[in-house]
């Protein structure tokens, strides 16, 4: 799964896990540096997502075939 397909929640969960690992002391230096880079990248990704967010507001409308379709809410 590429980063673009990951949900914000997935990215945040990964970030939170990394941060709590980094706060512990048992990491090897190499791993700590790698995880640090990854965490900074995740923050960057999450920030970009928030910056780009334009809230989509839709309503569900019943269609003739009994299903639903999304319509923008005015």
């Amino acid at each position: 799964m590429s980063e673009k397909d990951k949900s914000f929640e997935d990215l945040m969960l990964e970030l939170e896990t990394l941060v709590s690992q980094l706060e512990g002391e048992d990491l090897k230096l190499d791993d700590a540096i790698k995880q640090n880079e990854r965490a900074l990248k995740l923050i960057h990704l999450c920030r970009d997502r928030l910056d780009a967010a334009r809230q989509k507001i839709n309503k569900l409308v019943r269609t003739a075939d009994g299903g639903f379709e999304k319509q923008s809410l005015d």
Partner: protein
Amino acid sequence: MELVPSPSFCSKNIMAKAPELNHTFSVSQITGQIQHTLEKGFSSVWVKGEISNLTRHSSGHWYFSLKDGGAQLGSVMFRRQNEGVRFEPSHGMEITVHGRISVYPPQGRYQLVVDQMLPAGQGDLHLAFENLKKKLHAEGLFDPSRKQRLPSYPARIGIVTSPTGAAIRDMINILSRRFPLAEILLLPVKVQGDGAATEIAAAIDTFNNINECQVLLVGRGGGSLEDLWAFNEEVVARAIAQSKIPIVSAVGHETDTTISDFVADHRAPTPSAAAELVVPDQIELLRWFGQVEQSLQSNVRGRIDRYGQRLDAIAGSYALKRPELMIEQYIQRLDQFEDRSLRSTQDKITQLTARLDNLFVSVEALNPLHILDKGYAVISGPEGAVLRSIDEVSDGIELHMRLKDGEVSSIASKVKKRKIK
């Protein structure tokens, strides 16, 4: 022993056999039993009727009768309870009351001691509310173990409410301000009047069928008890209970409590509060990112610094400076000095010897045997190898112990391994 019963004994026996006399109550006894039966049998009852002969006594207590076409019931509502009544009861008004039957033996009368009083229409709703609440509670629908956790960062939020009105506006405002990343999906429903409950329940089912949202907000703005009634209907409660998607119930104002609130996974006092509950605040999130960036950098820098210090300590150690070599050099130079004039050499020798002594002291400090000064001993086996574990020792082998200033040998006995827990 008398073979013939005495007349007096006979007469006592006849008396005892008169059952009707044995079952005669005193007035107090029968009143006591009536009291017990009535007070136990009617300890918590709802009664509907019309108020008549209402007297507000100067003590603050209310005395009145409840009546209908066929009967009347003397009632009292004491001051402590009637202070909580939110309307003005008057003669002829239809009311619903809750209370218990109490018997007053000195006058042989029973009455209803009222602790709650509601206007009749509201009383019916109240009764329906209490009954459904009791029923669903008994089924375990309010159990904390049923409650689902809310997602921390929902990608899509479903809303079941009226498309017009303050509730949807408030929720959209707050969601947009706090977390525009989440898509909002509204399923417009009627929130009051005929069919509202069915529409709300169907909307919850629909959201579960399309299964695109991670959390649902179900509610409406404030209104009267009748306006909010759809959220007290069993069909809505069941739809909420069955939902696989966590639901936040947000009905009316802080003071309104509905059955939906009890069944939902989370209860918010208002629609706005519900919106705040389901998403994080992006401002706090961005602030957290900043803090994490800083602490991550100082964390890695700290690690590198600590490794650097350890490297420095190793690099600066005498072990790496190879003090033996330095000492040899000095000895060679001392040899050369000996060839020179005695006086000048003598001074230098004194000086260099002092420096040499210092170096020996330093080298000695690195010597692991230095620890012997503190009273420890180094124990070697028969082959001279240092023993590090009891596993290397067996009864009867020769042990060599080296102390600070000498050595001693002995034979091992009573070898016993310490249990490590």
